[in-house]
């Protein structure tokens, strides 16, 4: 299936809404193709897709950095890029990694970005900067020149600049890129914290498990088109669950299961799995009994729920890390 429209009627409270949003670059390359996106208020929205699928171009259009070739983008109820001045002070953004003035300290970098916003009060600037530094755990390194920062620290400083003001929307483009596992966990917990305060978070990533861990909603892009969008639970439910049997008697188990309408059987060293398809939940105990009856030594028996990755592969029929 391709280009699923936003589910349900147009909710007036969508934080981001696009219709037919298209960007064709001057070279003729179609980066985003007829995008219809709806991000509900209060959600943590995962924007998924392989590198080169049009995620960053979409975000740049939403932030008024590039003009759409056709279509409409609405952010916080106002059209972009026409309403940049009134919309963007309420939006924090991290786009394609942090960018800093290497010759300024972390604190001065934040003061510079804060001064760029005409709605921010110069009298309370120092207070905001201190608060943002504290929030991302950079207080100790605030006086260091940004060129001496590690990638993780730069990423955090970028986040701090997105959090200088209380925001209604936070747009984070690949926020964990280049971070170590510990840094990734910290960013994720920060995202959850911000979301708990009522800020809608729009998070782009090419890492499926990242989206699964923090997001309530997700949309999947592939080659500039929207493949699907919905809640993470809905999307994961599209992936069929698989029955998994752990046993040393692999061949025998596969034979029994095959005879009982379990399809798409895959055998591994000490494991057989397959799709139960139409079999109801009450059929499972009978299936287990049949295995035991046939003399299969059953070490484990259960259904594994589908992951977003399964859903993605099912939807696009392609591996995820392939660039569009």
């Amino acid at each position, binding site marked *: 299936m391709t280009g699923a429209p936003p589910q349900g009627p147009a909710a007036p409270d969508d934080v981001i809404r696009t219709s037919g949003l298209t960007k064709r670059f001057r070279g003729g390359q179609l980066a985003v193709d007829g995008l219809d996106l709806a991000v509900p208020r209060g959600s943590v929205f995962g924007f998924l897709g392989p590198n080169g699928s049009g995620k960053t171009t979409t975000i740049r259009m939403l932030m008024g950095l590039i003009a759409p070739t056709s279509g409409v983008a609405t952010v916080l109820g106002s059209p972009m890029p026409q309403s940049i001045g009134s919309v963007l002070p309420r939006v924090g953004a991290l786009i*394609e990694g942090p960018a*800093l003035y290497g010759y300024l300290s972390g604190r001065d970098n934040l003061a510079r970005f804060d*001064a*760029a916003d005409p709605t921010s009060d110069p009298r309370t*600037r120092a207070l905001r900067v201190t608060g943002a530094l504290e929030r991302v755990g950079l207080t100790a390194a605030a006086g260091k020149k940004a060129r001496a920062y590690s990638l993780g620290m730069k990423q955090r400083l970028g986040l701090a600049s997105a959090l200088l003001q209380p925001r209604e929307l936070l747009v984070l483009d690949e926020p964990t890129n280049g971070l170590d596992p510990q840094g990734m966990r910290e960013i994720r917990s920060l995202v959850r914290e911000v979301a*708990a305060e*009522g*800020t809608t978070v729009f998070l782009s990533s090419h890492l499926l498990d990242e989206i699964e861990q923090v997001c309530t909603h997700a949309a999947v892009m592939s080659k500039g088109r929207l493949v699907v969008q919905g809640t993470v*639970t809905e999307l994961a439910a599209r992936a069929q669950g698989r029955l998994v049997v752990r046993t040393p008697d692999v061949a025998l188990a596969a034979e029994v299961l095959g005879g009982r309408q379990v399809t798409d059987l895959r055998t591994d060293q000490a494991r057989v799995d397959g799709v139960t398809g139409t079999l109801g939940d009450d059929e499972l105990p009978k299936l287990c009994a049949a295995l035991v009856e046939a003399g299969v030594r059953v070490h484990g028996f259960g259904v594994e729920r589908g992951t977003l990755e399964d859903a993605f592969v099912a939807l696009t029929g392609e591996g995820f890390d392939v660039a569009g």
Partner: protein
Amino acid sequence: MSQAEVVRAEEAPAGKARADAAATSVLPQARRAPSAAGFLALFRSELTLTFRRMRTISLLGILAALPVLIGVVVKVNTGGAGEGPAFIAQVSQNGLFLVFTALAVSLPVFLPMTVGVVAGDSIAGEAATGTLRYLLVAPAGRTRLLAAKFTAALAFCLAATLTVALAALLTGAALFPLGHVTLLSGDTIGLGSALLRALLVAGVVAASLAGLVAIGLFISTLTGSGIAAMASTVGLVLLVQILDTFPQLHAIQPYLFTHQWLSFSDLLRQPMHWDNELRNLGLQALYVAVFGSAAWSRFTSRDITA
């Protein structure tokens, strides 16, 4: 069971409690209105950014060294100064003339070079490091950012010219006698009014660079490479001055932005002769209008992909 469910199940109670606590403080956000102080903050930020950079300080340092060098050379070779840059003959009689000599020597190459670096790098440098996108989503506003960059570059012109003038004055005072100044017209004026005239000349020289600032700013909006913009701007200054020497191009020469640069010497007459200088300032204003508009129209319509 998917990981997502596990995580959300754990997070839900804590998250909800926090949401409840935060609902009163964060959610009813007051829309902040732009204020005059907030609007001007970017201009202040731009000025501090320009003058705190090591690069700017080095450029000013080079400009300050130039008059010292000229002063020392003149001091060492006193007597044989028949040929040379403007006013060089007068320097050994009156140190104040080193100010005019230094300005005349630095105006064709050194001053435009430093101004080309600052103006050429203004937008392109921010694009190259990626900070441009963060300024624009802040949102700085493209027109406001361009105006702030232009203002800071003009301020640099003034600072650069004053640096040359001040270094020349100090060197001149240290190496040569000061006192009554004999102007080019033969009249003599006191040291106080001569100093005022030096200040006026420095101001006029700084203003002569305004057209170049606008050109540099325009070039800066065309590219994402700071180096390319700086090199093109400086290259253009040299090219235009070469064109200014071809007799065959006589018809277009009055419109070259460097053509009247040295007419500041007309202000060293009594009474001051303003015709050429006013033509120069008018020409600079024209260049600012044309290239400023070009920079604005390019920058406000451009896709920021860096």
